[in-house]
């Protein structure tokens, strides 16, 4: 596969093979690792002690430091154990601080990892990378950002998933009871295209500074395409976006939480040209994605506790024509920009109904 323009050059002197491994042994070792139950089904880089030690070249973290107890097993996620999983995923030392930050982020109680990892829902953690170091490390935020071809995105997302299974115990079909699973359970990591965004990046909305390097995690379904080639005004565009977001089967109508909307650069340009602030976009979409109770009561998880949910007070449960918003507040629609050049497309990512959580990467770097 060709190397994309923002992919870093391979790191010389790192990840050299231990001399003891003969070429003919490699296949045997890969097969033994495949049979170990430690992999995601794809071949892994063997977590040789030497490779794991190399992960500490660019971090202040000590091997025995417990980053968190990782649910659902509540086992201690030591830096060394996380490093072993990062090596298996294919990480280089420069990727490792992002993995540590992602593990820390999913452990925030507001993310509710314990329930999320055991849920029947079709979601998995998405990592959204932001900050000035993203280019140096080589994260892709342009064309095919949700897809394959860039090492940093691939290995950081994969490392988190391996940690969730190997340390957290979220074994598919055993503890992870997802009915369908999710292709992002192999890897699911993008970066923000901050230069193409007319607004503050997501980390600033979530309380971090412009100069901070961060990861944000989100319990995410797959990205859903929104094509609007002919829209010439913000309202024409946002009416299409709103209609694409408003699906009665989404869990958000019933449990709230955050949703993520990724504008492609062309759509972001259209909104920027007319001076729409992010808060204007959020308010418009909050207003135009509502569904009537008469429909919602046949879908989702309508049930005996519907009067205890977190709908705004102005929703009248006695009136079936009363409109329910997709999420409770406009700011619960998290907006960012990513993707490559091309005709107007954006992506909507519904989720499981919890919050986006951001964590610092810098704290793990000397």
């Amino acid at each position, binding site marked *: 596969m060709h190397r994309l323009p923002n992919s870093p050059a391979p790191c010389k002197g790192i990840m050299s093979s*231990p001399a003891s491994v003969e070429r003919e042994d490699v296949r045997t070792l890969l097969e033994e690792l495949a049979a170990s139950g430690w992999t995601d089904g794809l071949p892994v880089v063997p977590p040789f002690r030497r490779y794991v030690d190399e992960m500490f070249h660019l971090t202040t973290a000590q091997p025995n430091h417990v980053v968190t107890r990782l649910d659902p097993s509540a086992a201690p996620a030591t830096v060394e*154990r996380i490093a072993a999983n990062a090596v298996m995923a294919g990480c280089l030392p420069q990727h490792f601080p992002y993995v540590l930050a992602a593990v820390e982020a999913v452990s925030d109680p507001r993310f509710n990892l314990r*329930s999320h990892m055991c849920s029947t829902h079709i979601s998995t953690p998405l990592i959204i990378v932001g900050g000035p170091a993203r280019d140096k490390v080589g994260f892709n935020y342009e064309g095919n950002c949700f897809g394959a071809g860039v090492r940093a995105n691939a290995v950081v997302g994969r490392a988190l998933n391996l940690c969730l299974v190997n340390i957290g115990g979220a074994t598919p079909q055993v503890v992870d009871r997802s009915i369908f699973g999710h292709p992002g359970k192999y890897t699911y990591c993008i970066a923000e295209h901050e230069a193409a965004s007319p607004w503050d990046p997501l980390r600033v909305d979530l309380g971090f500074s412009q100069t901070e390097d961060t990861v944000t995690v989100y319990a995410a379904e797959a990205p859903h395409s929104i094509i609007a080639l002919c829209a010439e005004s913000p309202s024409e565009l946002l009416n299409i976006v709103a209609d694409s977001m408003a699906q009665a089967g989404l869990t958000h109508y019933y449990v709230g939480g955050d949703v993520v909307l990724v504008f492609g650069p062309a759509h972001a340009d259209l909104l920027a040209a007319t001076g729409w602030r992010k808060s204007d976009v959020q308010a418009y979409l909050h207003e135009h994605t509502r569904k009537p109770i008469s429909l919602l009561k046949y879908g989702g998880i309508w049930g005996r506790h519907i009067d205890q949910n977190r709908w705004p007070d102005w929703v009248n449960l006695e009136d079936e024509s009363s409109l329910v918003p997709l999420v409770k507040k406009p700011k619960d629609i998290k907006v960012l920009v990513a993707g490559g050049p091309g005709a107007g497309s954006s992506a909507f990512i519904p989720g499981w109904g919890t919050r986006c959580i951001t964590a610092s990467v810098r704290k793990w770097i000397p």
Partner: protein
Amino acid sequence: MDESLDRLIATWDLISPVPPESAHRSRPLAGRLGSLAGAKGAFLDNSKDNASQLLRDLARFLHLEFFIGDASFFSKPMHTRGAPGSQIQQAAQRDFAVVAIGD
């Protein structure tokens, strides 16, 4: 960890990506009741109807077969969020608690 994995790690000088079983949080078992007869029970569900149905059927069974006392039922406000502390404290006032999820 089974012997084959121990051998794999030793042979290739690997760092295990999996914590030892002993590293998993050991949650001490609650004190065992000598008898359920007359004991007050707390039943906490995850706010989904099947969980509620399961727990109510279980409480009925325990009442008929083991003569438990009062049964108190609790539901988390939302399945995507943890039970609030006040709810857990109320449940802790009973002699025993049963927690279940349903879908």
